Each structure stands twice: as C-alpha cells, then as structure tokens.
C-alpha cells in the first residue's frame, strides 16, 4: 500500500480530538522538524494508522482500534498545536 498523508486521517483525528487537526502543527520528537499534520506520512495498510515524520521517518503517532476501543499513541511528537483559525 502506498504512503498517504495526514489529510487521509482527518476524520480519525477529529474523532480523537473533536476538532479539525490536519492544519495543526506537529513538532517531531526525533528530528525537531515542524510541519502541518497534513504533510506527515501516513500508512493505513496495517491494522491501524501509522504516522511518520516526512523528514526523518521517525514514528510520530499510531492509532489502532482494538475491540471497538481506539488506542492512541502520540509518543513520537514533541508538541502538537492547533492552527489558530480552526
């Protein structure tokens, strides 16, 4: 399966955060790159969604639904900040 980008998980992110997050800014905890969530690499081929930094490919976020419970791991992010306008 091809790499997608953060636009593809806008609906999932809204389920988690209850607001629009594709234009939020994330700072990578591995390489400090700052980028909109929409520009991150997203892999949907496995059992959940895996989000990686486009600069260093470091793991930023993982979302997996297990028996109806959505498990969220944001451990690879240094910060995640909503866009002021959204």
């Amino acid at each position, binding site marked *: 399966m*091809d790499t*997608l980008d953060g*636009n*593809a998980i806008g*609906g999932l992110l809204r389920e988690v955060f209850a607001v*629009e*997050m594709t234009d939020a800014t994330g700072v990578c905890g591995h390489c400090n790159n700052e980028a909109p969530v*929409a520009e991150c690499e997203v892999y949907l081929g496995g059992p959940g969604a895996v989000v990686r930094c486009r600069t260093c490919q470091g793991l930023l976020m993982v979302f997996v639904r297990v028996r109806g419970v959505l498990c969220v791991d944001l451990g690879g992010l240094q910060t995640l900040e909503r*866009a002021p306008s959204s």
Partner: protein
Amino acid sequence: MVVTAVTDETPRVRTLQLAVDDWPGHRAGQHVDVRLTAEDGYQAERAYSIASAPGEPPAITVERLDDGEVSPYLTEEVRTSDRFEVRGPIGGYFVWRSESSDPLLLVGGGSGVVPLRAMLRHRARSASTARARLLYSSRSLADVIYRSELEQLANGVDVVFTLTREQPPSWSGYTRRVDTELLREVAWPAEHGALAYVCGPTSFVEAVAEGLVALGYPPARVKTERFGATGGR
C-alpha cells in the same frame, strides 16, 4: 445521507449528489469519509473529496478501483435514494479560501482533479479576482473528468491538459508526465507568489511538489494531498 442524483463522468468515474441532514456547509478542498457496513457487520471506510463548491449541496466524484472495497459499490451499484453513512466535511489544510487574491495554481493527476474542481467552482461563484491555472494530467481524453465543464471555463482561468498514455490523432497538447520541465512551461514563475494545490496519486504529488520547490516555490506555498497508488478520491 441520501443519494439524490448520479452522473457518469467517464466510464470509470461517477459523481453522486448527496443530501445530508444538518450539513454544516463545506470549504473548497475538503473531503468526507464514506463508511459502508456489510450485513455481517464488516465495515470499510474511504475518504472522497467533495466535488461541489461551498454553498452547493455536497457531491462526491468516485473513480472505480477494480480491487476496491468501496468504490465498485459507489460507481456501479448505488442508485438515487440509496443511503450510506458519511462523516464530514473534513480538512483544514488542503482548503482554498476565496478571499485570497494570490494566483492559484492547481495541479491534478487523475481523480486528483476533484477537490481542484471544487476550488474552481468556488472561485467562479465567489467572484474571486485571483487568476487561476489548472494543469491536469490524465491517461487519455476519455479519462478526463469534468471535461466539458473545464473546457468552458473562462474569465481568468487557464486549463492545460497533458494526456500521458493515449492521445487523439489531432492532439496538439502535452503528452508527458508532469515533471520540472513541464512545470517550468506551465506554472507561473515563483516570483508571482502563486499558491499551489497538488492532488493525485502519491508518486504524482511528490514529483510535482519537488518540481515546484525546485522552481523556487516556497514549500509552505505548495499544498499537497495524496491518495495512494491509483484512483481513490
């Protein structure tokens, strides 16, 4: 959500007009998630760009993928007054605002033209003064989505087609895949301050975005949306 009309765009592509209860209105470039549930409870969910302009009822344009789980149903089986679940509108990054007067450069590959068409319709309906140029890569003329609508666009919009696999005998337009050289010929020079939106298969989007940055476009002025190997949105 109920389907109110079905329009064939190409042999593989259909537009579905939707009526959604309490639709909050959408922005140009946003998408919806479509969720289908099988009788055994199995669910499949896919994202589809909204094809209509803000202020118009929501519509999605779907390309059939032969091995798809959702698109064969949406392109072959769905009938007017059928219902399925949609979530949205979604997206705040790949969105064009009509208040922007910067030149608008749209580059689409295949069904990646769908959100770009929403932007062009929004531009026309909002009396925007932004110049606009669409570079649209298709396999063949028969695969061009919204062809008659795009050919009739005027009033500050240029539309440039490239047909990469098959061309009509009289074709005098581009026949190459979009690369830096083609962008150099079609895109405004970087100093014009254009805002670019690029949508299509992942490899297409990456080639176009790299090309625009190589021509001097600031990365933050090149907004991208990838939908995978082929088809999708």
